[in-house]
């Protein structure tokens, strides 16, 4: 088991190093996130009370679109020079690769969210009327929900034509309960309108169910040919 985590960590470090060296995805994604926030702000220009009601939805939809663009890039590196075959032909466990990719994506998307959130707060004059600290578990659980399935479906899409459109096509329907959870919880916490506990529990359940499913089935799709 020790070597599993070592391998996962080594893969994660390798991905971060590669990303840092090329800075391809990073720069363009950061700029893209900024653009998304600005466009949303132009499109929805509400007063303070309305914005608290809809901000939850806006923020998460913005994160969703930004992360889909990011997720598509995840596996691109493994396709160049068919490097993925080197992993597939080795005895290395498939899940170590999956977790490394998922964690890498998670870090990446959290970074994007960290850039977009202050901008949203500024443009919409957001202030949480409910217990603001609860936004942290919502953020973490919600992001993981998108990232874990996103990483999985991105890998699945590798074996399809029109790869870039397949990812959102597969991801969005499956993510509906998670998106509802994120949006509702955020809305409740911003508007101070009751308890977000059900939604946080829902997100947690979603995360557990789908992380298990991804770990159980990733080996199958990695070796499918």
């Amino acid at each position, binding site marked *: 088991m020790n070597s599993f985590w070592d391998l996962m960590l080594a893969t994660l470090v390798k991905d971060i190093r590669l990303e840092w060296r090329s800075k391809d995805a990073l720069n363009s994604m950061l700029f893209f996130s900024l653009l998304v926030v600005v466009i949303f702000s132009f499109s929805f220009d509400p007063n303070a009370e309305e914005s608290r009601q809809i901000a939850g939805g806006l923020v998460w939809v913005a994160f969703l679109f930004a992360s889909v663009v990011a997720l598509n890039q995840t596996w691109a590196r493994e396709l160049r020079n068919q490097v993925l075959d080197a992993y597939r032909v080795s005895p290395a466990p498939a899940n170590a690769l999956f977790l490394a990719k998922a964690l890498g994506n998670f870090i990446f998307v959290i970074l994007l969210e960290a850039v977009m959130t202050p901008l949203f707060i500024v443009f919409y004059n957001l202030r949480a009327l409910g217990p603001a600290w609860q936004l942290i578990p919502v953020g973490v659980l919600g992001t993981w929900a998108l990232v874990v399935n996103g990483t999985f479906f991105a890998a699945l899409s590798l074996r399809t034509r029109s790869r870039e459109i397949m990812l959102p096509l597969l991801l969005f329907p499956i993510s509906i309960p998670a998106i509802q959870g994120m949006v509702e919880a955020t809305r409740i916490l911003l508007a101070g309108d009751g308890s977000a506990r059900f939604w946080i529990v829902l997100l947690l359940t979603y995360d557990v169910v789908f992380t298990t499913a991804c770990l159980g089935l990733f080996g199958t799709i990695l070796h499918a*040919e």
Partner: protein
Amino acid sequence: MINDRTFAISVRNVVKQFGRFAALRGVTAEFDAGRFHAILGDNGAGKTTLLRALAGLAQPTQGTISIFGKAPREACRDLGYMAHPSLLYDEMTGMENLRYFARLYGIAGDARCAEVIRAVGLDPQLMRSVGQYSQGMRQRMSLARAILHDPTLLLLDEPFSNVDVHSAHEMVGLLKGMREAGKTIFVVTHQAALLEGVADEFVWMQEGLIVDRTASATRGVSGGVQ
């Protein structure tokens, strides 16, 4: 299945179908251990598909493959694979690449990585990233990656394509040495002449089947469809 143990590699009626096209149409063959086999044939003959099936990268639609008595995926520690794409990360140096791949096989430390890099005639200290290598250097580094874990079976797909003559000869020499050390080697190539006198056997494929097996790269009139 007892027969599988007398041969290193046993391929039984392997079919690989893609919709209406079958890349492999019922290949049956047995190969001894410790021999150097060159696989030749036109484009579309099924050479790459066969090699990938042996490596466990492609699952046969029908039929079985046995490598040292095991299924290809189970035999993964015993086999090394190399293809025309380099299977390396362009943005890292050779040593960094091998360090990472060594981990996939549970090999710790730099010693082994440096050793194989030197064995293929490259410098472990080279700080250039693989993306900036010449094709010859890239193929040699890819070979180093394939032999990192000292596999008993080597599967090489077009290792000499677009490679300069010097690199190609270096690689052939290295492979010859490995065969003498008892490894089993399969090389898919269009450049049969390079392996004349080196390979023990030339396996000819056409349209998804093995049509001939000869000792020399020049195919005589020994049957086979033209």
